[in-house]
């Protein structure tokens, strides 16, 4: 895996008009995979994930001049990615005029449409179980289990107290366990 300079160094490069594009490209390369997988786990489909990810990094290009130094770039980026993913799902719901349960079902169907989908495999069962979780629990489980994010950082990304996040994670794990045991 390629090593990248510290975020502050990259931000300095971005703020200099001469090196702006270089600094931005480095930031994109540094975070693109993490952000992609975070988005992909939420929207499931690759094309949808690609559209959302492009929107995320365009927002970063436009908003990085106003980015405050007191916040961490990493949490700011995850916040944008999360909001963009949720906005995308919200649009999908409106487009299809369906409720959360139906969009959860639609995401499970997208999952089943994957060419590698195999419900006999435990990793696919886990993905189906995740898609059945309520939106907030799905986000918390994804950020904790896959992104290994601390509750403190997560509270900045999701604007929720650490106590509430711990409770959400606990409920999410229990629901996944129940689904795997019963399927």
């Amino acid at each position, binding site marked *: 895996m390629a090593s990248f300079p510290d975020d502050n160094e990259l931000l300095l490069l971005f703020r200099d008009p001469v090196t702006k*594009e270089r600094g*931005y*490209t480095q930031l*994109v*390369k540094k975070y*693109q*995979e993490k952000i*992609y*997988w975070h988005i*992909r786990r939420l929207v499931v489909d*690759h094309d949808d994930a*690609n559209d959302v*990810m*492009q929107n995320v*990094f*365009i927002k970063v*290009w436009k908003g990085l001049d106003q980015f405050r130094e007191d916040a961490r770039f990493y949490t700011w980026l995850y916040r944008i990615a999360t909001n963009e993913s949720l906005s995308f799902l919200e649009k999908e719901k409106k487009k299809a005029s369906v409720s959360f349960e139906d969009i959860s079902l639609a995401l499970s169907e997208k999952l089943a449409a*994957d*060419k*590698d989908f195999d419900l006999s*495999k*435990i*990793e*696919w069962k*886990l*993905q189906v179980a995740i898609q059945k979780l309520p939106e907030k629990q799905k986000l918390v489980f994804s950020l*904790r*289990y896959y992104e*290994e*994010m*601390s509750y403190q*950082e997560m509270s900045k990304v999701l604007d929720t107290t650490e106590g509430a996040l711990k409770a959400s*994670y*606990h409920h999410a*794990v*229990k629901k*996944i*366990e129940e689904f*795997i*045991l019963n399927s």
Partner: protein
Amino acid sequence: MLNRADILSELHAISPLVEKLPFSPVFTVPEDYFTHFHQILMQRIQKEENQDVSAELGEISPLLAAKLTKKMPFSLPEGYFSEAILPPSTEAPVVQMFPAKRARVLYAAAAVAALVGIFSLFFLIGNNEKNLTPDLHVFSELPKMNSTELNSYLLNSPDDVPADPLPLAGLDEVDFESLINEVNDNELSEFLTENPSLRIESLN
């Protein structure tokens, strides 16, 4: 950021089953997707920032881009933009304290109040005159009465005439006598000449 061991340790406490699930990606990504993503992204950003209006329209509708013109079909009065523009007035604007409608209401209320005041004044004066009139009439009519009529009135209305009128005037007989003595004969004669009806026949 935590490490994997921290996450698994926490997960073990909640659900040992989920802790043991394989941590392997199930989704696939098109080949070289991450290699070229930043290039695709930069192309989109540059395109958005340097978007030419005509080129954008050409992409959406080549037909409209070829046929449409920016020339406006509307006409303007001659010299509309070349006419001298008058400088704004330097006078301070007049600000009405009361709007015209409110002022009219205030004027009407003032007129009604004035009329009520004037009528009240006439009413009070009229009442005072009425109160004064009986006395004035008695004094003006008295000289016209002769002593026979007066005696007849006093005999027929004994209750209206006080037995002794002097106390009513705040005088006693001593005062009366002293007052009479102060009047000389000439003044008394003059008074009787002016008021012949008061002359007592027997004194003649």
